[in-house]
């Protein structure tokens, strides 16, 4: 059975203009993102990975081309439509967690949960990321790995269709990085969310259903993995 196409990009370009200079961060890119898949985006620094992810997440506007979420034309959506799109369907996980320092773990998750009508239970989500013991801690009282788990819990509590992760292991040590990847795969399995992981670490490609390699603003190659490796099984 063919998987549903959640996001469709058609000849999308993104050009940053800074005074005299303009940078073509993304050049005529077409891509489909499928429901329930794990997609890994690889590429060297400056190749346009984050740019692509941010466009998919409705955080930025494209310069030309078309971008659809199901039938909804995001390229011509208003700001508030984009906000609504992020609110309803997207979960973000960043390299530097970006938790709210004035809220406890539990409250950080509750904050996201308050955005949607039918969220998961915050306590259960926190249990799922293994932090049921840390509900009452503030971000400053948690390790980096723990903060990243909270940020994953915060992203998934809204039941997003798509989880967008930009360098989720970038600031973490080797072992902690692996457990975070495991967590992301588990989210994919348990909730069926599409997971998009941006990384410059080629080894991580093995855990995805598909791997996109980017170079200088283009998709250089799309690789389809017959089977996904477990994070335990990969080395870098």
């Amino acid at each position, binding site marked *: 059975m063919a998987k549903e196409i959640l996001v469709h990009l058609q000849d999308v370009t993104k050009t940053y203009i800074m005074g005299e200079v303009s940078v073509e961060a993304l050049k005529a890119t077409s891509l489909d993102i499928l429901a329930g898949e794990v997609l890994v985006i690889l590429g060297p620094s400056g190749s346009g990975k984050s740019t692509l992810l941010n466009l998919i997440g409705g955080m930025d506007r494209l310069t030309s081309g078309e971008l659809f979420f199901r039938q909804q034309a995001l390229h011509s959506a208003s700001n508030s439509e984009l906000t609504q799109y992020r*609110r309803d369907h997207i979960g973000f996980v960043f390299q530097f967690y970006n938790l709210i320092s*004035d809220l406890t773990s539990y409250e950080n998750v*509750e904050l996201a949960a308050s955005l949607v009508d039918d969220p998961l239970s915050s306590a259960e989500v926190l249990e799922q990321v293994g932090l049921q013991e840390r509900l009452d801690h*503030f971000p400053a009282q948690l390790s980096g790995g723990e903060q990243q788990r909270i940020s994953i819990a915060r992203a998934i509590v809204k039941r997003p269709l798509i989880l967008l992760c930009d360098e989720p292991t970038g600031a973490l040590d080797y072992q902690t990085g692996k457990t975070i990847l495991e967590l992301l795969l588990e989210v994919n399995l348990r909730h069926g969310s599409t997971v998009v992981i941006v990384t410059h670490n080629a080894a991580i490609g093995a855990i995805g259903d598909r791997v996109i390699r980017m170079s200088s603003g283009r998709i250089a190659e799309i690789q389809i993995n017959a089977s996904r490796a477990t994070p335990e099984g990969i080395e870098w």
Partner: protein
Amino acid sequence: MKVLYRKLRRGIWSNRGQFFAMALVITIGISLYVAMSNTFSNLGYAQESFYNDNNFADHYFHVVHAPEAVAKQIASIPGVEKVTARIQQDVAVIKADGTRASARLTSYPLPLAEQVNSVALKQGRLFEAYPANGGAEALVDPSYLQANGLNLGENVEIIAEGRQIPLTVVGTAIGPEFVYAIKDLSSMVPDPKTFGIFMIPLNQAQEAFNLPGQINQILVVFTPGADTEAIISHIQDLLSPYGNLASYPRKDQLSHSLLDAELTSGRIMARFFPIIFLAIAAGIQIVLLRRMVRMQRLQIGIMKGLGFSNAAVLFHYSSYALAVCMIGALCGSVLGLLFSQSLNQLYATYFNLPNVEGYHYQVITYSFLLAAAVGMVAGLSGSAPIVNINPAESMRSQPPSKSAHNILERLPSLWQSLSPLWKMSFRSVARNRMRTLVTVGGVVAAVSLLLISFFMNDAIDYMMKQYYQKEMLYDYMVRFDQPVRSSELLAISRMDGVNQVEAFIEIPVKIHYNGRTVEDAVNGQAEGNRLKTPFDSEGNPMAIPEQGIILGEITARKLGAEPGDLITVETTLNRGEPIITELTVVSINRQLLGSVCYTSLAQANRLLHEADVVSGCMLLVDPGHSSTIEAQLSDITGINSIASRQKEIDNITSLLDSSMLFVGIMIFFSLILGLAIIYNSIVMSYNERKKELASLLTMGFTHTEVSGLMLKDTLIQAVPGLIIGLPTGRWLAVVYISSVSTDMFTFPVIISPVSYVLSLLVGLGFVLAGYWLATRGLSSLDMIEMSKYVD
């Protein structure tokens, strides 16, 4: 160091909104300081030099009349430096248009220059004792000349001993005892149209009052360090055969005491207002610098690593505060001197003082020192954490700000009912304790200043209402030269358009109780009078007792007398022997200005051993007839003065415009203070939380929700500030009033509900305006930028 200087400039530029707001608050603080200090220095210097140049008296003695030669006797007492004996008497004046005014006719032995309470010539020339073409010459005070459109060389007509006497005006002059030229405390403000100071040679006064070789006042200047009490009682002994009417020191002299009260209250304000503004500015600076130091931890570590000493880095960051303060001092001084000019002019209309002008470089110097001190203190305490920054440690990335549970969480049911956004705001406000304190304090200060400003407005309102709608309801008050039979009032009551005539008598007295003596006047009101009413301290009208006396509050306090006490009243009319009577104090009344003791007309008559005399009457008239009635009254020579309530109101109202301007300026300044504090607080919290706010946007919160978060922060601090500000403002008003209250002047702190509401509304206004100013840039929050960086 050049590099550091450039960094300083850039740092100020990139926080220009906040530095501008602070510079503005400092500018206001310094300008208030400069304006008031400069003006009150001017006023103080002018007072001192004017007093010195004109030998302002240390003590006054009033007698019925005494031979001139008594001055020589007094002059020979050791410790007496100067003595002047003169005649001074209030007289009726008939103006060119036939209407009445009154004048304080004051005479001077010649040569004038060496006399106690000599005068300074402003225009024309001094009078001569015996003018070549006969007649008498006079100097008048410049305000009277101007207000009545008189020219030098014209005559003024006075009534003395029932005769109309023309005086030729040869010049204008001012004297140290007439700086604040009001007839008595009931007039509140000068009314130069109807009250003037006429100065003539002593011999002319003796002739006019038919007192050859006699005087009725002795003015004394003591040598410094003299035993004044002993000298005063010695002089009183000397004067006792001549009828000691009154004896009072300089501090009880009417003009002096009012000028002094103005100076005292001015000096208090000159400290009080600037301190509030400067303290708040210092608070903001400390918070701002602490934030800068925290944000620039890495840079500071690098600077230290490069070899800059602690002191150099500390000085660098302190210089932000210092620079802002210096800019504020500069702008504030210029602005303050401009304000001072108009304040000088304002005082010149109230006070007849020469040379209330000029700029005092000390004030400017002080203002810069003050600003520098504020800058240094704020700068050093704001950047003190620099000392603890370790170059190596600073390179490591900083963990998220440490938050903590706060007091509200002790009430779990309340806390749980809050949305996460409210929780964020409460925690952020609780975490930034210093900033919150400064913000709440700033709002409290701004709101209490607002309330005080509105209170000043209320005070004027209250005074006008109390005076002109409650205490005195007559259209005219007529006073005779001396007590007359009550039948004399018949002529007045028969005039066309006179609807009501109520008789009264005023008797100057000394009141003795328990070894203490106070000079006062007893006001005897005929039975059934309702045009003048005493009020108790609660503001309730009081009935006049048939027997006994209602003491004025100030007199009662001076005597230590209370209701039920038996006091001794001694009449001090300037003719006849003093008569002594014992009276029971029935109750105590409160006057805004001065003191009046009330009794019945019958009782007052008994004080004089009379049965049926009055000294004046109050009239209600048809408005259409008022000018003809005034003209008819003016024709009666026995009438000393005719006071029109409407004209008094008009006169006061015209002078109040300038006070309204002051109130307006204070409201404006309070607004700016509030705006600056709210703006700074929001911008600081916004800058600190930019990243978190951006992450809210990525999660799908709308811009409105995110700026709503800033509004929550603001309200959590502003609402308590607004609420605390009201009682604080009231308290400050009480402190202010009690610090400026004098023997003659006291004021109830009555603030109208409208003022509270207005203060709250204006307060809410600056909160929302500050919020709007600070969050205008919020839509430029860049989610993508923010998601990339660590602190």
